[in-house]
């Protein structure tokens, strides 16, 4: 297989990870360190340390040691210029005395200093950058199981197998390419139980997620699992696994030892050396020194000798003075002598990987007997098995250096000296020390450094390791890309029944919540928004227009006591509404604040048809249900929003259009303004409401959704001789603004009561009880502060929503909506102003485009203030 590394070609064998292929090709330096730009090479080879982070196909900070090579992949180094081998910024390590622990806090004591320095520091320090070539496709999936086993080593296989035999649905989550854990690379640990694995693989009740890692164990046994390359075209899949029982079988990992120059290239953990050898057939060096206790050293020594590596010496950790070399390791100084070598194999302490148990609420307690922090279980639904529970035999614990500098935290270049300085400055608790020095806070999330940091803190403070304790384990760990968390880019879209008719008529779309609505229609011409809206506006005012209002919430409220419920929830009275009549409906909360508006039509004695604003349907429905609880009223509420399509036919010629399609008497005598009828239109059973949001004669027609497109087309055809046009939301907004009609949520906010909004006529305080009555009664008596008024601007430039209103040189309010009015031939709008200014003809100023423009207040609608036209 071929791939690209640093712009040149590179080769890999099938099954190689990126790091294994590069190591085989002679690459030794894989990264430059965060702060000092020191060269770093492979250390753990298991995705637990920060030493192999690279940019792969545009994605930064990819753990190259566990990422399989794919044909044609592009791999780039990070944080190194001009190359990994020569990095100009490695000069910074000469100036480490300039950058003591906490130097951010000590140096940048003024915001201006930080602002000046930040761009340089951000560029010099830190991790990779996201390239435009990064993949953009991610997805989410959900999985429900009885038992989730995290880890595919011997303990995990055993636990999964037992659960599967009980007939449970089981998921095994393993971050390696195949099950087996340490059995895959440690000869002495035993044989991989191939037979059990194949039985699990074939079992119908077992799912195995390979190359997937669990980054968090959340409340309610919810596991965040990240699966790489789930299928062609998708970079990552985030699986939400919900389990009845979680088994943490994450094993143990090896950590480095502390000695001067312990971060040189060529110093590797013994398990890293074994992985390279057994999994990829890569021999890590020619002349090796092994540092570690006898038994562990013996095991890795045998493996290396078998691969033809010369073992120069085996040294106990207590004998080490320092590693030597600049960049690459060249030798080691011990109390028994100096040895030259090109590889130091470190058999470090093995740490149970029990962070997930701690995330689930468990505790990690130090055990002197085991030389490790062991997990205690938080609840019966989480268990921990195998090495993660401390079943492994730990290697010798780390001896600690006295004063010489050894790197504790490889992620952010924190040395043992830095930790000692931090403690001397008073940060002597492990949690404060962590925050001050940033040790354990890098990409490895403390896996490589936590034990050493605790060791240094314990020794410096004289407290035992148990007393020192561990830092808190929090998800996500390991890290997760933001793309995976954000998930797929598609959003659900709700389309009205007439959607495709709008599309064929050249609709320009706008999103309103989940809905898509035509903003305006381009119709046969290539006209822009302004011209189109103006044409649509004119057709409604002069002839006839039609708009799709299917997005309105629609509730069918039935039963003997339906009127009582509506009286209770809405401010107006509906129990006395005569069948065949419609009333404007306003809903307030207990504080008297406007929540929603719509219309309520009484179709029959015990049947009301309620409309709500598009976005508030669920809220209104739930409120009605809630207020119904605890009463013995006979009411049934049915959400029929998706069942009905709706359109508003409006304009002086609307009656002439509709008359052609229905037998219903449409004269104002038989069907007056604010009346409703059930009638057949084109043979389709429909509900007709004679209302006028846009201020003209018009009907809101509700019909079964499956017939709505047909009715829409029939009305357009019938209206052709009158010059009918479909109109969009933009024209509707202008038409209603000229009528001074309020849009809840646009012209009102979270403090608006009906009195201030000029809707006092909708509040019937003489009702015995209704939601908000107590505080609305008070509001009616109080002098309120502001009023919603109309204004006519002296000019055609439009103020922005929220633009300031100024009166007598003082702030006096804000604009909520503004449009150019063809009737007034100038900009008009609605604004909140102080009550003292809310008088007809009062002059104010409005901020437009940075300047103040003069305007005149009007308390009446801009168009047809007497409401003659919509009654015609």
């Amino acid at each position, binding site marked *: 297989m071929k791939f690209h590394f640093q712009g040149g070609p590179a080769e890999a064998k099938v099954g190689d990870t990126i790091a294994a292929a590069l190591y085989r090709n002679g690459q030794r330096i894989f990264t430059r360190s965060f702060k000092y730009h020191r060269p770093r090479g492979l250390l753990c080879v298991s995705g637990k340390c920060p030493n192999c982070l690279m940019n792969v196909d545009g994605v930064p900070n990819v753990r190259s040691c566990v990422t399989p090579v794919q044909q044609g992949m592009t791999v780039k180094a990070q944080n190194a210029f001009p190359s990994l081998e020569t990095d100009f910024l490695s000069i910074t390590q000469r100036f480490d005395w300039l950058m003591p622990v906490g130097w951010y806090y000590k140096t940048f004591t003024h915001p201006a200093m930080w602002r000046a320095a930040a761009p340089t520091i951000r560029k010099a320090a830190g991790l990779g950058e996201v390239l435009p070539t990064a993949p953009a496709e991610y997805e989410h999936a959900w999985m429900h199981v009885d038992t989730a086993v995290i880890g595919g080593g011997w303990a995990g296989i055993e636990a999964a197998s037992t659960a599967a035999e009980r007939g449970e649905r089981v998921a095994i989550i393993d971050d390696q390419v195949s099950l087996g854990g340490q059995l895959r690379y440690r000869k002495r640990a035993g044989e991989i139980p191939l037979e059990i694995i194949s039985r699990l693989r074939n079992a119908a009740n077992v799912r195995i997620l390979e190359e997937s890692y669990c980054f968090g164990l*959340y*409340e*309610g046994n*919810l596991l965040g699992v990240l699966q790489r390359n789930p299928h062609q075209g998708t970079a990552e899949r985030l699986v939400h696994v*919900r389990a009845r029982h979680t088994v943490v079988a994450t094993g143990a990992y090896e950590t480095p030892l502390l000695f001067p120059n312990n971060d040189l290239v060529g110093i590797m953990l013994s398990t890293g050396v074994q992985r390279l050898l057994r999994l990829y057939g890569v021999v890590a060096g020619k002349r090796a020194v092994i540092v570690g206790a006898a038994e562990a050293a013996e095991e890795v020594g045998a493996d290396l000798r078998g691969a033809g590596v010369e073992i120069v010496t085996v040294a106990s950790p207590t004998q080490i003075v320092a590693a030597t070399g600049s960049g690459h390791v060249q030798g080691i100084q011990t109390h028994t002598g100096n040895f030259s070598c090109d590889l130091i194999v470190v058999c470090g302490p093995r740490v149970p990987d029990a962070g997930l148990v701690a995330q689930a609420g468990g505790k990690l307690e130090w055990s002197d007997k085991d030389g490790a922090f062991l997990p205690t279980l938080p609840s019966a639904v989480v268990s921990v098995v195998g090495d993660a529970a401390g079943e492994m035999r730990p290697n010798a614990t780390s001896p600690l250096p006295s004063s010489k500098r050894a790197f504790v935290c490889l992620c952010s270049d924190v040395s043992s000296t830095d930790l000692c300085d931090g403690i001397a400055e008073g940060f002597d608790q492990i949690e404060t020390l962590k925050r001050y020095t940033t040790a354990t806070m890098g990409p490895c999330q403390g896996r490589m450094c936590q034990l050493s940091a605790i060791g240094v803190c314990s020794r410096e403070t004289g407290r035992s390791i148990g007393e020192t304790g561990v830092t808190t384990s929090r998800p996500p760990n390991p890290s997760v890309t933001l793309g995976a968390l954000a998930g797929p880019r598609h959003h659900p879209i709700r389309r009205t029944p007439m959607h495709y008719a709008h599309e064929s008529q050249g609709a320009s779309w706008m999103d309103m919540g989940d809905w898509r609505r035509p903003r305006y229609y381009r119709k046969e011409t290539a006209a822009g928004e302004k011209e189109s809206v103006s044409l649509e506006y004119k057709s409604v005012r002069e002839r006839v227009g039609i708009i799709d209002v299917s997005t309105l919430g629609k509730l069918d409220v039935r039963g003997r006591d339906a009127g009582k419920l509506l009286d209770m929830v809405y401010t107006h009275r509906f129990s006395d509404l005569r069948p065949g009549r419609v009333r404007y409906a306003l809903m307030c*909360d*207990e*504080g008297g604040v406007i929540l929603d508006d719509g219309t309520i039509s009484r179709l029959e004695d015990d049947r009301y048809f309620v409309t709500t604003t598009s976005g508030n349907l*669920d809220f209104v429905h*739930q409120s009605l*249900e*809630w207020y119904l*609880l*605890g009463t013995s009223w006979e009411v049934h509420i049915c959400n029929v929003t998706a069942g009905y399509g709706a359109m508003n036919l409006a304009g002086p010629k609307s009656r002439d259009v509709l008359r052609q399609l229905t037998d219903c008497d449409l004269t104002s005598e038989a069907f007056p303004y604010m009346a409703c009828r059930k009638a057949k239109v084109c043979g389709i059973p429909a509900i007709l409401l004679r209302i006028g949001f846009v201020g003209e004669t018009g009907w809101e027609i509700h019909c079964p959704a499956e017939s709505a497109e047909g009715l829409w087309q029939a009305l357009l055809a019938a209206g052709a001789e009158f010059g009918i046009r479909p109109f969009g939301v933009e024209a509707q907004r202008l038409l209603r603004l000229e009528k001074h009609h309020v849009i809840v949520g646009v012209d009102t906010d979270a403090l608006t009561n009906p009195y201030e909004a000029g809707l006092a006529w909708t509040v019937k305080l003489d009702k*015995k*009880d209704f939601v908000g*009555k*107590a*505080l609305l009664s*008070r509001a009616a008596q109080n002098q309120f502060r502001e009023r919603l008024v109309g204004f006519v601007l002296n000019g055609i430039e439009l103020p922005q929503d929220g633009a300031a209103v100024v009166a007598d040189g003082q702030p006096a309010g804000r604009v909520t909506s503004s449009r150019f009015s063809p009737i007034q031939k100038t900009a008009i709008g609605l604004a909140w102003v102080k009550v003292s200014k809310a008088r007809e003809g009062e002059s104010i100023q409005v901020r437009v485009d940075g300047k103040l423009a003069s305007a005149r207040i009007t308390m009446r609608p801009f168009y047809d203030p007497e409401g003659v036209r919509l009654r015609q």
Partner: protein
Amino acid sequence: MSFLLPCPNCGNRSVYEFRFGGEVKQAPAPDATEPVWMDYRFNLVNVAGVQTEWWFHRSGCRQWLKAVRNTVSNEVLESFLPGEKGE
């Protein structure tokens, strides 16, 4: 927050299927004074411990229910349909 909430109709479900409806409180009488209504509308008990609260099973049975929950541990001690407990 990702605990499971037992719905009396639907069984254990992810809390994300529900809309939180707030603490169960007794509404004042219609003619109660303004401060009493203000207190009802704006002030919460906000207990660190067990409280009874409203939930609406939005992505399920679409019913209001009451749940007794420990706000510290998110342990739900019981849940029931309104009126079931004679309240």
